[in-house]
C-alpha cells in the first residue's frame, strides 16, 4: 500500500488516498504554478507587443487600446495569472530564506493580501477603462 517498505502500518488509507505528503497541501502549489506559467507564455509575448505598440502613445490612444474587448480580456487574464504566479514564487522564496517564524507568517499573509489587492486593482482598472473609457475620446 505504501510506497515505502516497512511503513505499511503507519499510513491510513485516507492519508494514502489524499496523497498530500508531509506538507499537507499536495501538488496544488506546483500545479497552479505550472498552469499559470503556461498561460503566461502567450500572454507575456502578447503584452510585449501591446506595450511596444503603445510607446509614446497619447492618453486617449492608450484608453482606446485598453478598451478594445480583446485587449481588455487579455489584460484581465494577464493580471490574474501574473500576480497569482508571482505570489506562488514569492511564497517559496519566503519559505526558503525567512526562518524567523513570526516574520515568515507575517510576510506570507502580507504577500497574499498584496497579491489579491494588486490583481483586483488591475482587473478593476481594466474594467473601468473598458466600460466607461469611451467618454474620454
Amino acid at each position, binding site marked *: 500500500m505504501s510506497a515505502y517498505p516497512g511503513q505499511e502500518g503507519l499510513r491510513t488509507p485516507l492519508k494514502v488516498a489524499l496523497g498530500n505528503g508531509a506538507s499537507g497541501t499536495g501538488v496544488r502549489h506546483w500545479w497552479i504554478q*505550472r498552469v499559470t506559467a503556461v498561460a503566461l507564455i502567450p500572454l507575456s509575448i502578447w503584452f*510585449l507587443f501591446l506595450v511596444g505598440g503603445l510607446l509614446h502613445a497619447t492618453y486617449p490612444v492608450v484608453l482606446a487600446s*485598453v478598451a478594445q474587448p480583446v485587449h481588455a480580456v487579455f489584460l484581465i487574464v494577464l493580471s490574474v495569472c501574473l500576480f497569482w504566479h*508571482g505570489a506562488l514564487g514569492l511564497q517559496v522564496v519566503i519559505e*526558503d530564506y525567512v526562518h524567523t517564524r513570526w516574520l515568515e507568517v507575517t510576510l506570507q499573509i502580507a504577500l497574499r493580501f498584496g497579491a489579491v489587492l494588486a490583481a483586483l*486593482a*488591475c482587473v*478593476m482598472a*481594466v474594467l473601468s477603462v473598458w466600460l466607461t473609457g469611451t467618454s474620454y475620446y
Partner: protein
Amino acid sequence: MPNTRPTSPHLGIYRWRVNMLQSTLHRLTGLFLCLGALLVAWGLIAAASSGAAWNAFAAFCGSPIGMILLFLWTWSLLFHLCNGIYHLLHDVGQGYGPARRDREFAPVYWRAGWSMIVASVVLTVLVWIFLVLHMAGGVA
C-alpha cells in the same frame, strides 16, 4: 527553539555548472518581475484614473532610470520566459541527456542551459532594436 542546523546545501562544495546559474537567475528575475508586475498595476490604475496620472506614469517610464529598469525588465521577462519553457519541458520529462560527469561529455542540458541565457540576451537586444526603430519611425 531556533534550529541552528544548516538549512541549505553548501554551495561551495559543488563543481560549478550552468544549471546553478540558470536556477539562480530564474529566481532573481522572478523576484525582479514581481516589481515589474507592480509597474503594470501602476500603469493600468493610472490609465483608469486620469490623463495627469497617466502622464506621470509615462514620464517615469521615459526617464533615464525608467528606461534602464524597462530594459532590465525586458531581459528578466525574456530570460524567465525562455528558461520557464525549458523548465516546463523538464517537468514533462524532456531534455535530459545522459548523466555523464566528465567535462568533455557535456550533457545536452548544459548546452541547452547556455542557449537559454544567450537566447534571452539576443531576444532582448532584438526587442530594443525594434523599439528604437519604432520610436525613430515617427509615432513619437
